[in-house]
């Protein structure tokens, strides 16, 4: 059986599992549709949260990102995990005690204002829609690159499967499918990593392997990697210089943490557990399951760059015979060169591949004079290859390659489903029932939820097929907005009894507007190319702050604006202060 057939069979089998679960876990009430009837075991919820959270970007792109950033890649690792500490300590238990269905619902009730609720819905929709485009795109790319099926076909297959289990099962169906998707995803990620760790270091645990010595040598892997990269004109892998500045690493980490804690599709997962104390613990379990992948990723990244450099440069640097000859390229290089994600060009026409840092002028000058190198000859190197090609680099059997394809698709589908639920519940529950049709019956609300889910899937699928040119930038926008609008407002709603509706509305608007303005100033108005007012370079950034990191500043503006306006206006009514009191204690007797 050839690889493509095998891969399609494995992916098809996972789809049958998802649909089987959907039929078993149909939603019969709005409570089951929105929050799985609040009956999900905290460990199961942790696993579902992990799948919900870890997207195609975590699965496919993150290790590659770290491989090329080295030390400063830690901003993504710490940022995307540290947010769970904020969520577990500052939000999850209190929102669970509040005991309703959506994030805007809490904001609307706590700030006794339909306007506040509508602003929260707008923030939620912008965040979730920008985020879901990337996921649908991820499904299509996984199909077209790994399974060699046209992008549109793959996208339709993915849409159909999500349609079946999300529309039928709502949160209940999504939760149980996400558990299956987590298992597939983590297995697909760790199996190649374990084999590569054994090959390089003899240690089967990637997290330990990265800190071990190379097989048959006394040199530590990271020391050897640092040395090799320096010899090729790059900066050391583990050094704090290079990558991004310390200020931006600090702010990016903070913005990603606050943004993670403010993502509505993750927050609503904590509405599904039975008790407040389950919500506290469940966030911990979620992080355990996330950390399994996130602590493996640094090993995958570092080992991938080590494998790449040593494949291209098997001999002495500078020795004319030291580089890989074009005709000896391993099969995986050949195959990925066919996709356009990896491209070579024999600039000095010596029939061998040189890979080095030709942007380091001093080194490039020396290499030209001493070695006759005319520039780095890997001219295109898409960082996503790092994870996708891993099983081939490690010569793993065909079923592992098939599994990685299924894992990438599981990662994208599980996140897409969670986002689609957040979108549809905020439309049917917050806008329809909460604002426009308060008297709608439960049966009709459930129907409305299903219809808005179906429309959201079609819309996301359309955008996945025809992505706006700015798809990559908008992910930064989603995080920035979650950090600057939702997180501070939720937190103040719980921790400041005195916070009133005027303060909350002012804070959300200031956070949203400043973050949007800062991003548009550098990325262009509504992301139209060429309309940016200042150059998007470290020199052009205000105080050197990267637009991706601005969410942390936007959150600060939100807090300050809310506080000032609160001081100038009257305190919230007594029943709202009582609501805050009751949210703060787990027992339901107040």
């Amino acid at each position, binding site marked *: 059986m050839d690889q493509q057939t095998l891969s399609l069979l494995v992916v098809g089998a996972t789809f049958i599992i998802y649909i089987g679960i959907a039929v078993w876990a149909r939603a019969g009430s709005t409570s089951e549709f929105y929050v799985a009837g609040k009956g999900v075991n905290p460990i199961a919820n942790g696993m579902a949260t992990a799948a919900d959270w870890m997207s195609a970007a975590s699965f496919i792109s993150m290790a590659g990102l770290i491989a090329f950033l080295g030390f400063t890649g830690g901003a993504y690792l710490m940022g995307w995990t540290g947010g769970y500490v904020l969520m577990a300590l500052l939000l999850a238990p209190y929102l669970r005690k509040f005991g309703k269905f959506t994030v805007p619902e809490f904001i609307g009730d706590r700030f006794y204002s339909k306007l506040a609720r509508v602003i929260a819905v707008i923030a939620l929709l912008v965040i979730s829609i920008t985020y879901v485009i990337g996921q649908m795109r991820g499904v299509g790319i996984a199909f077209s690159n790994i399974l060699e099926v046209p992008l549109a076909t793959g996208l339709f297959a993915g849409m159909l499967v999500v349609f079946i289990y999300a529309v039928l099962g709502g949160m209940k169906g999504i939760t149980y499918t996400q558990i299956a998707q987590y298992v597939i995803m983590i297995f697909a990620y760790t199996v190649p990593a374990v084999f590569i760790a054994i090959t390089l270091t003899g240690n089967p645990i990637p997290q330990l392997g990265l*800190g071990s010595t190379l097989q048959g040598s006394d040199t530590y892997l990271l020391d050897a990697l640092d040395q090799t990269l320096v010899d090729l004109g790059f900066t050391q892998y583990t050094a704090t210089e290079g990558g991004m500045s310390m200020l931006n690493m600090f702010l990016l980490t903070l913005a990603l943490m606050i943004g993670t804690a403010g993502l509505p599709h993750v927050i609503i997962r904590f509405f599904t557990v039975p008790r407040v104390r389950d919500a506290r613990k469940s966030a911990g379990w979620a992080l355990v399951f996330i950390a399994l992948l996130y602590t493996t990723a640094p090993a995958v990244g570092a080992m991938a760059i080590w494998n790449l450099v040593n494949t291209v440069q098997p001999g002495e640097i500078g020795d004319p015979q030291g580089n890989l000859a074009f005709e000896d390229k391993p099969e995986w290089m050949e195959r990925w060169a066919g996709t356009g994600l990896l491209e070579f060009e024999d600039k000095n026409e010596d029939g061998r591949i040189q890979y080095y840092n030709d942007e380091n002028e001093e080194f490039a000058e020396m290499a030209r004079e001493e070695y006759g190198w005319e520039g780095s000859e890997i001219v295109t190197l898409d960082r996503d290859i790092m994870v996708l090609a891993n099983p081939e680099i490690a010569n793993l059997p065909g079923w592992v390659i098939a599994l990685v394809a299924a894992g990438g698709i599981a990662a994208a589908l599980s996140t897409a489903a969670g986002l689609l639920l957040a979108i549809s519940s905020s439309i049917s529950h917050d806008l329809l029932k909460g604002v426009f049709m308060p008297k709608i019956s439960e049966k009709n609300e459930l129907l409305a939820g299903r219809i808005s889910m179906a429309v959201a899937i079609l819309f996301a699928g359309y955008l996945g097929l025809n992505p706006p040119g700015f798809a990559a930038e908008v992910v930064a926008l989603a995080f920035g907005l979650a950090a600057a609008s939702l997180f501070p407002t939720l937190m103040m709603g719980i921790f400041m009894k005195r916070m009133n509706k005027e303060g909350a509305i002012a804070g959300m608007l200031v956070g949203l507007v400043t973050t949007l303005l800062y991003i548009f100033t550098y990325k262009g108005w509504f992301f139209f190319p060429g309309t940016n007012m200042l150059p998007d370079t470290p020199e052009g950034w205000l105080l050197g702050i990267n637009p991706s990191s601005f969410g942390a500043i936007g959150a600060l503006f939100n807090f300050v604006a809310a506080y000032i306006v609160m001081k100038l206006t009257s305190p919230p009514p007594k029943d709202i202060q009582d609501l805050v009191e009751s949210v703060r204690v787990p027992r339901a007797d107040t």
Partner: protein
Amino acid sequence: MSEDLSRDAYWRANLRLLGICLAIWFFVSFVLGILLAHPLNSLSLGGYPLGFWFAQQGSIYTFIVLIFFYAWRMNALDRKFNVHEE
């Protein structure tokens, strides 16, 4: 004189615990993993330079311990102040 077991006292105890946990959260990631990573890199943990280890491994492990520690302490506080769930 008996100990204050009011809801206000419960909330103050919660805030104190939160303060401790968030101080550790900040110290491990932002101080050890970023601000002091450069000097820490001259020490090592196995084959890991220490600052690099905190940024890419250690802080994540600490986060997990923190969440379970907080959940465990809060459950104890819930019972002590008699606000736990049935």
